[in-house]
């Protein structure tokens, strides 16, 4: 009981309560400012002497590769494979050398200078401003000298790692070694150039390739142990197509942190970096992908075709370098490093239970820290309003509601980049104008643009019209992390049909569980999440209450319903999926592939008939997340079969999930017992 006793202001500092917007923004420096006024060539040719790790023993890339190849770790796996396959170790060793050759970055200053020059040109053309918090740069500057550093940027665009390297070069910091997807290798010349500028490449999936895994992980670790350069990778694993942060992937994180866990370095720093785009280059591509149009393979010619985007305006970018986080401080008291004492350190091993939980917690924390420093543009607030008012809404309403939302968002700790000294009316109108590809204003009514389509088939037709919705949603999604806790409390409050705080809590805890693939919640932070959500609702005057009972404040219903509606598409989407799975034809085993194909048809029909309100359920991302959640909750069971994975429905559990999402009767939850 005590744990949920009172929403206190002492909510974890991870979520900022006070308005830090101003001083944060003041710390931002526009990189492009100087580039627009001085020679790019001179900039590219300037003296570049980055600070290095204090214990660095300098070595060439080929020496580094040699160290990796000769390492106990790689040699061990080579011997193992040789024993198992009968192949001679020399051949496997050559193979390893070959992998290293493809992977190993060969930092060439001339290439870096070339990039510095071209990227200056490109970025100037694309973006109005590239703003960086210099305080974060200073901290990074110190961190790099102190301990090995891992950079963990958010991942929304290909631009991310180019931009980051560009910034590191600009501020005279060592260029990071980037773990990027192997598909970049397809971009022949550019791929090679990227490699020389610091990127190294990994395959999207290692599968069972132990040699590749050994070479790759040893490569990363070797760089970290010696502190050759900061290592950069995306903890989200891939670019988020939805604008929402993705659940962290732990494989690379484990590799990066292992040198610390095994005592090979005293400490290392994780630096969360938040890169916020006012407009994402790939916005339309992502929307198509989410609707099932496969992603075009990255190729150099594709990049050239993309030149036409150079004539477009992509607004500003904010890059916030977070406070470097010491891995040692995260690990203290949570993970027993002595577990590595009994097995030679070069023998590969899976992380044990507590290490896995530790990695999971670190991964989530890093993503939350990225979210915390994301900069939110007015357009994001606007899309949040527009999506709730489809197909159209009057412009004055949009302005009024956006401003109303801005106040709440700021109170909830959002980091909003709202232009100063410009009237609200003008801010919103110019935003609308900039987004003519998504919204249009007809007779003072704001509505979404529709892609022209001649398609006759239902699904295709509906899909086409959903493209802009999903584009819009991808911006709204950028702010959901600010609201997710209070909104789920609000929804729990409505669904629980009860004023008792513990009922609301149990309902909240269930919702949080259901959506934990969709939104980022720190593992083990349930009570704090609830407290924080409730605290924010109470602070904004939406809910009042005592220790045991809660009720909606007089003026609070607007907030409550707005917040619930913000997450409506998710609740409704999951419900649709649950109900669909409960239909008789799905009671037998089914495959994920079949599911994805059929749910689309089903949803499209529902949309056409107007049976459901939101069309976001068409998004593959939501479908996959829902499936993962249902599997986690035991509503479906995944079985390995000869033909892949099949799923089996557990009707009872499924019905319960559906019921929890939109209960018709007051919820009697078993989780109450926990309290």
């Amino acid at each position, binding site marked *: 009981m005590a744990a949920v006793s009172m929403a206190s202001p002492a909510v974890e500092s991870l979520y900022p309560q006070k308005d830090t917007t101003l001083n944060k923004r003041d710390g931002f420096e526009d990189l492009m400012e100087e580039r627009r006024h001085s020679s790019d060539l001179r900039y590219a040719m300037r003296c570049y002497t980055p600070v290095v790790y204090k214990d660095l023993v300098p070595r060439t890339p080929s020496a580094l590769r040699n160290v990796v190849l000769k390492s106990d770790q790689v040699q061990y796996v080579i011997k193992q494979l040789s024993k198992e396959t009968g192949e001679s170790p020399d051949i496997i060793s050559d193979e390893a050398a070959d992998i290293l050759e493809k992977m190993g970055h060969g930092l060439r200053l001339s290439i870096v200078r070339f990039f510095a020059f071209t990227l200056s040109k490109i970025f100037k053309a694309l973006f109005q401003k590239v703003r960086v918090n210099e305080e974060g740069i200073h901290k990074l500057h110190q961190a790099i000298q102190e301990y090995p550093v891992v950079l963990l940027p958010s991942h929304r665009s290909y631009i991310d790692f180019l931009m980051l390297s560009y910034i590191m070069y600009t501020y005279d910091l060592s260029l990071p070694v980037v773990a990027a997807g192997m598909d970049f290798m397809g971009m022949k010349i550019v791929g090679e150039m990227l490699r020389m500028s610091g990127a190294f490449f990994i395959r999207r999936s290692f599968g069972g390739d132990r040699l590749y895994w050994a070479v790759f992980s040893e490569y990363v670790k070797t760089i970290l142990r010696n502190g050759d350069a900061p290592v950069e990778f995306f903890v989200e694993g891939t670019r988020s197509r939805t604008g929402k942060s993705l659940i962290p992937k732990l494989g690379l994180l484990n590799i990066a942190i292992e040198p610390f866990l095994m*005592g090979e370095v005293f400490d290392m720093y994780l630096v969360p970096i938040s890169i916020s785009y006012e407009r994402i280059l790939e916005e339309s591509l992502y929307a198509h992908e989410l609707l099932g149009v496969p992603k075009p393979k990255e190729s150099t010619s594709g990049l050239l075709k993309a030149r036409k985007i150079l004539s477009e305006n992509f607004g500003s970018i904010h890059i916030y370098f977070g406070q470097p986080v010491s891995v040692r401080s995260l690990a203290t008291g949570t993970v*027993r490093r002595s577990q590595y004492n009994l097995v030679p350190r070069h023998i590969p091993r899976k992380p044990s239970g507590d290490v896995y939980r530790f990695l999971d917690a670190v991964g989530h924390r890093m993503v939350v820290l990225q979210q915390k420093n994301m900069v939110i543009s007015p357009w994001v607030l606007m899309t949040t309003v527009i999506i709730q008012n489809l197909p159209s809404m009057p412009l004055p309403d949009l302005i009024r509601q956006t401003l109303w939302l801005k106040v709440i968002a700021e109170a909830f700790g959002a980091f909003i980049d709202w232009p100063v000294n410009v009237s609200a009316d003008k801010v919103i109108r110019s935003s609308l104008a900039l987004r003519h590809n998504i919204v249009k204003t007809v007779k003072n009514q704001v509505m979404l643009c529709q892609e022209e389509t001649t398609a006759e088939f239902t699904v295709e037709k509906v899909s086409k019209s959903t493209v802009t919705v999903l584009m819009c949603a991808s911006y709204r999604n950028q702010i959901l992390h600010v609201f997710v806790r209070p909104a789920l409390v609000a929804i729990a409050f409505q669904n629980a049909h009860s004023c008792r705080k513990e009922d609301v809590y149990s309902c909240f805890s269930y919702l949080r569980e259901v959506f934990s693939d969709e939104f980022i919640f720190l593992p083990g932070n349930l009570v704090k999440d609830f407290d924080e959500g409730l605290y924010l609702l109470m602070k904004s005057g939406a809910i009042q209450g005592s220790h045991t009972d809660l009720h909606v404040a007089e003026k609070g219903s607007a907030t409550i319903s707005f917040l619930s509606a913000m997450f409506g598409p998710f609740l409704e989407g999951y419900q649709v999926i649950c109900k669909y799975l409960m239909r008789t034809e799905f009671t037998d085993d089914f495959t994920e592939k079949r599911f994805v194909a059929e749910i689309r048809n089903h949803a499209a029909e529902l949309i056409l008939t107007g049976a459901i309100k939101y069309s976001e359920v068409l998004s593959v991302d939501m479908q996959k997340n829902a499936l993962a959640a249902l599997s986690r909750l035991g509503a479906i069971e995944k079985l390995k079969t000869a033909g892949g994975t099949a799923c089996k429905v557990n009707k009872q559990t499924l019905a319960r999930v559906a019921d929890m999402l939109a209960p018709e009767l007051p919820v009697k939850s078993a989780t109450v017992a926990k309290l």
Partner: protein
Amino acid sequence: MGTEAPVSSPLTSPRSQPQHGRMASGERTQPRARQRLRVMAGHLRRAEPAPPPALGQCRALEPGPADSTAKTAGTIPRRRQEILKWNGWGYNDSKFTFNKKGQGEFTGKRYRLSGMVLPALKEWMEKSFGASLEHRTSPRTAPNLEDLPLPILNEECLKELKDIGIPFSQDPEDRLIRSHGHCLHEIFALREGKVERVPDVVIWPSCHSDVVKIVKLASKHNICIIPFGGGTSVSDALECPTDEKRTIVSLDTSQMNRILWVDEKNLTAHVEAGITGQDLERQLSEHGYCTGHEPDSMEFSSLGGWVATRASGMKKNIYGNIEDLIVYIKMVTPRGIIEKSCQGPRMSTGPDIYHFIMGSEGTLGVVTEVTIKIRSLPEYQKYGSIVFPDFEQGVACLREVARQRCAPASIRLMDNTQFQFGHALKPQVASIFTSFLDGLKKFYITKFKGFDPNELCVATLLFEGSREKVLQQEKHVYDIAAKVGGLAAGEDNGQRGYMLTFVIAYIRDLGMDYYIIGESFETSVPWDRVLDLCRNVKEKLVRECKERGVQFPPLATCRVTQTYDAGACVYFYFAFNYRGISDPITVFEQIEASAREEILENGGSLSHHHGVGKLRKRWLKESISDVGVGMLKSVKEYVDPNNIFGNQNLL
């Protein structure tokens, strides 16, 4: 001197029979003994060795002319304070100090360094610690006896104690100086005059049967016994538990110090457990033998103490650690006497019961007699040193030496900080020529060879054995060193390193006069983790100091002192200037504890040879598992159900 012993002495009589292959006659013993003495003097320049003892079961039982010699045989008298400091390490007459000119000096006549001026010491202290000669602490000049608690001892007990006729004392000073070992906080408290629980009675048994009587009496009256040997513990093992309400008797074994017999056929000696290392080695050397067990504390620490803590000696590569040297142990416990019935060199008779005794740290009983292996004194001894460009290469060399199993009697690798410290203790050079030569060497190493003076580190070596074998081994080791980039750096450097072994313990007392507190601690670790452990622990010490508000950067340094097939022993020295901190000892202990945790997390052991005591108890469970602790507990419960040996060490 050795040959002047009474002919009747069983120690010397067999010596006159030419039974040793390489020793044709008694006459040849003399030069050998002399040589051995010179060797010893190289370590500790001690004056005259005492005459050898006579054999006898017990002084009390066998009064006679031998009695008087037995009494004076030991270096340590009953009133230890007559020759030893009450508030610090070692002899009263030996200490580091600054003379009027502000130059460092080492007083006394006992050691090679004694009476020498150390011109670099002051600057080193200022540079390393931010210390200044103007900032002196003002410790007590005499022990604080006024605040000593009154002894707990009832009349009946006192009477019985008198009846058994074993000397004992209730003198406050006697009691106080047996209430501690040499942990930093213990010495600090003495200097500050803070006293807590001390023993109520000090008793000096002079033989095994005395101990039997004392233990019986203690069991009868439910008295707590804390065995006291040389008093050199650095694990809080001698600290009296403050919650001990019973009478505490400090059982001082220092007068049980005779070599009872020597068996030259089997090369063993049967010795009373209270003998100190220096007495044992000196007495054996008079007859051409040694045990070769030389822990750094050997001047004061006792054979029984070595057994009780699983001690390790500098020259273990040739002679082995205590567990390799012991053939027989007799221990008096409340349950009775534990011993084995034969002296077979190895047995398969279930778990070795001696291993319950070795490392029992005074929790089970008192070790009274030990049969220990002896060896002929080495024919030839040679020092050596190697300089390496950095610590990593030094470790690589030691590892290779261990792999090839060609380690000399001793091989130690100092890190750069210790190398520089060694320079701080360099005596004033005698001639311009030496100084010039030093300069030349330095030039060669740093300029010609390109070694960074702030990175390079030095290994010191001690070879022992036949001349031929020593030279062969020396070459082997230097060849290995050359392969990893090391340079032979001469005998002098090596010798100086070993000379410092015995005086280095004195330096803490000087530091404490100038607000510097320090401690050493050790561990053992697998080879592949040596470097990582050394780096991480040093870094941890530095970082913790910063976080806990230590105003000056600390001294955090280490050396690899022993090599094994599967790993090494690492020794850390940690010290800092505590000016500006209100509770320096607590801060120090917290930092030391965090360093120990770092050691454990990096694959190091809880202790290589210092033992657990009370200082490291809290980590024993995680070190040896719950069941392991349970096994030890059940032994304790059987052997000593009433916790007569209640020093609360280990468990």
